[in-house]
């Protein structure tokens, strides 16, 4: 099995927004969803999730409310706000552009220069 990748600086926020955009989740659920969707190929320091969540909520991109978890315990659920949705869109676009550019550069062969 391949060694999991460390998260690129600044991408955690985007992943959280994406995870939450698929449906309201609690913090642990967000972690699981990212791992599940990435097929366990990303390594996320569990604790680092929370400052990011607080930051996103502070900025108004997600909101939270208390609800019951699957096994009926109190958990804090996050969901995307309208502003968060726009933000996710913008970030996705800029990430894709960036990825294209980087991929283009990296795939350059000597004769193309």
């Amino acid at each position, binding site marked *: 099995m391949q060694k999991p990748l460390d998260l690129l600086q600044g991408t955690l926020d985007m992943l959280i927004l994406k995870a939450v955009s698929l449906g309201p989740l*609690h*913090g*642990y659920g967000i*972690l699981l969803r990212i791992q599940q969707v990435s097929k366990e190929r990303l390594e996320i*320091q*569990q*604790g*680092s999730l*929370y*400052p*990011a969540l*607080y*930051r996103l*909520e*502070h*900025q*108004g991109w997600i909101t939270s409310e208390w609800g019951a*978890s699957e*096994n009926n*315990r*109190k*958990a*804090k659920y996050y969901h995307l706000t309208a*502003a968060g949705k726009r933000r996710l869109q913008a970030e996705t676009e800029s990430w894709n552009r960036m990825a294209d550019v980087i991929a283009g550069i990296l795939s350059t062969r000597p004769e193309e220069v």
Partner: protein
Amino acid sequence: MRLWSCLRSWLQAVLRRSRMESEMDAELHFHMEAYAEDLVRSGVPHQEAMRRAKLEFGGAERVKEECREARGVRFLETLFQDIRYGLRALRKSPGFTFVAVLTLAVGIGANSAIFSVINGVLLKPLPYPHPEELIDLHLTAPGVNFPDADPAPFLYFTYREQGRSFQSVGLYRWNTQSVTGLTEPEEVQCLNVTAEVLPILGVQPALGRSFSEKDAAPGSPQTAILTYGWWQARFGGDPSVIGRQIMANGISHQVIGVMPASFHFLDRDAAFLLPLQFDRSKEFLGGFDYPGIARLKPGVTIEQASADVARMIPIALHNFPPQPGLTVKEFEDVRLAPKSRYLSQLLIGDIGKTLWVLMGTIGIVLLIACANVANLMLVRAEGRQRELALRAALGASWFDIARALLMESIALALLGGALGLALASAAVRVLISMASSHLPRLNEISIDPAVILFTFGAALVTGVLFGMIPVIKYAGPRIAHELRGGGRASSHSRERHRARSVLVVAQVALALVLLVGSGLMIRTFQQLRRVDPGFDPRDVLTLRIAIPETQVRDATAVIRLEQGIVEKIRAIPGVASVGLATVIPTERAAHDLIYARDKSYAQGVPPLRLFKFVSPGLLATMGNRLIAGREFTWTDTYERRPVAMVSENLARELWQDPSRAPGKQIREDLKGPWREVIGVVNDVRDNGVQEKAPAAAYFPLLMNEFEGDTVAVRRSVSYIVRSKRAQSESLLADVRQAVWSMNPNLPLANVRTLQEIYDRSLARTSFTLVILAIAGAMALLIGLVGIYGVISYAVSQRRREIGTRMALGAQQSDVMRLVLSEGMLVILIGLGVGFGASLASTRILSSLLFGVTATDPLTFAGVIALVALVALAACWIPARRAVRVDPVIALRYE
């Protein structure tokens, strides 16, 4: 939108801190438990699962800290932490804390007290709706050398009919009324108003109705509105008083209303309000006896209103007939002009400047206190140098340390502020009782939210001010270097002492400024006491009795009754003499023109003079002196002889030499008979000791053909009683008995001693003097403690050096000189700076001074000597202690 969500989450974080904390705990806890459960499900033993869950989560505390930071509350958190830490540090050194907090509390409290006076008197708006639209319609008459004149009914009608800038105009007048038929006859203050005055003020009676146009129409039945206080006192607050009749000056008035308890007008209490009834068809030019009030139309400035009045004055002069004996030309020569001002200015007068001077003074005291506390903080910070350096070495940024130090100062200052507020509320009560006679709007002075805000604002500024000094000194970027120095060795350096020396220089300089100020006030007070007021205020009782026409109609009978009362009072044991006068010093008095027969008045009217109507024997009773001629006799009075007396300055002005005045002739208008000047009276400072004596004319109480009246009699006169028992209640009881034996319906009003009146005219000076003296004494005391503290600290730091010197053979006198010279150098610099600052700043005081210049050399020399002496004493004690250092002990101490 985003800003709002940030703000909301920040506010939640700040205001509901504990809730946020517990939620954060619950959330992280849930995460770890859920993970552990998943691990258990995949076969990990329970204990191991919990351990791994915690481990893989990472440091929970650090995560929480980062969460708080993400919400932008970390700064506040550390701030609270710093304050808590600061308070704990202060608790650990109670002695230092006690001295510092007390010093600050006195400084801040004194400022709050003065500020609450300024707030109540100057800053608060008048308690009427839109007070900025209310103006006082004052006039000036430069043509007769009369700077302050009130409007007259003929102007009131003109303003009402032709005014463009007023919503409404009204006249009012204060007078006294004798009320009979309730209990004892009572002489009360009464406010007469035209129907517009209450609507202009925006005040409605609490009970009943306001005055209508009809109430103010001539010939209408008389009505009255009671004030709340008098209604409570005389009618026990009985609402059925509406509709009842009260007898005032022998005329029956129907009560139509009661004013609310909150109603105050220009700081004077009245028992009731009566409507002024003017008959437009009978008004003439003259009668400038009614203060006027107006409400401006919205947006109209006071300048526009003045221009409007200036436009209307000539119109008015041609719309009404002149007063009998005068011509329109003469009224034009008076050159009436508007002198409008805001109602608040009329009420506040010129006390503003005095109050700001006092505020500045007390502010300086706070600065001196600040310097002291800063000194204490410096000493403290020096002792903690190694601790601070250690914290820096362990990773605290210099900003963190600076903030911690500053928070300690601010915590100290806020404690001082809280205690200061308590001191201020006590001080305000003292201030009010001290200043009750001459401070306007006393009932508005209180510790209100504005004062509380001011107090804590002042505390905060103070804290930052004295907190910055140790911060700059010890928490600078170089802080880590100190760890090597080991603290004590470096504290000997001169550089170390410089900050404290600068503070001492500032303290000495500021104390000098304050003391020079109070010195000048003391000299002013001395000069005022030395002024001859022209009368002898000791052992004189005065009271006023008015004889209404309803009691005695005939003019001669009035004089007979007045003379009868005089004789009765003189018969009381212990009474030396009794006299009557229409006006006593500092009372508002009538002014009119004086024409001399041997002068020409072709080029215009003469200036207005003070008119006094007096009885025989008055001059001796008041302690006035007759410069030339003789005074009136009762025969002059009863026979209505055309005689008069003049004041010395008037005699000099008209005829150069007072001795030439007797035999000259004067009159008060162009038609009246000439009156022979029979005497010259010395100048009397009737407008207060600080003011020049006005030129005055004296007339008998009963005359023919005076100011247009066929018979002129003075019904309301002051009885002036010279007696060794003037201060005693028993004399007053005897006088009352004497009066009522002549006529039981005559009330006694305005009972005062001449001494009270005299003292009151000095009251503002003595008030300023006392505050300045307190400020000066505080400054001196705080400064003394400051100098003493710095010098004795310096000595204690140099014990070893001094011990070494003495071990090597230095004499006690050498050591003494060493310590003293260092202290005196600082003090001399302080005196020099203070001297310059005093020269520059005492000019502010000059309007409060009398008979002494703002740069009075005697005061300056005296104060400098005093401060130098006190400072020397403050150095002397530590110097003595230095001399007593036992070299052996000092060296072993190491």
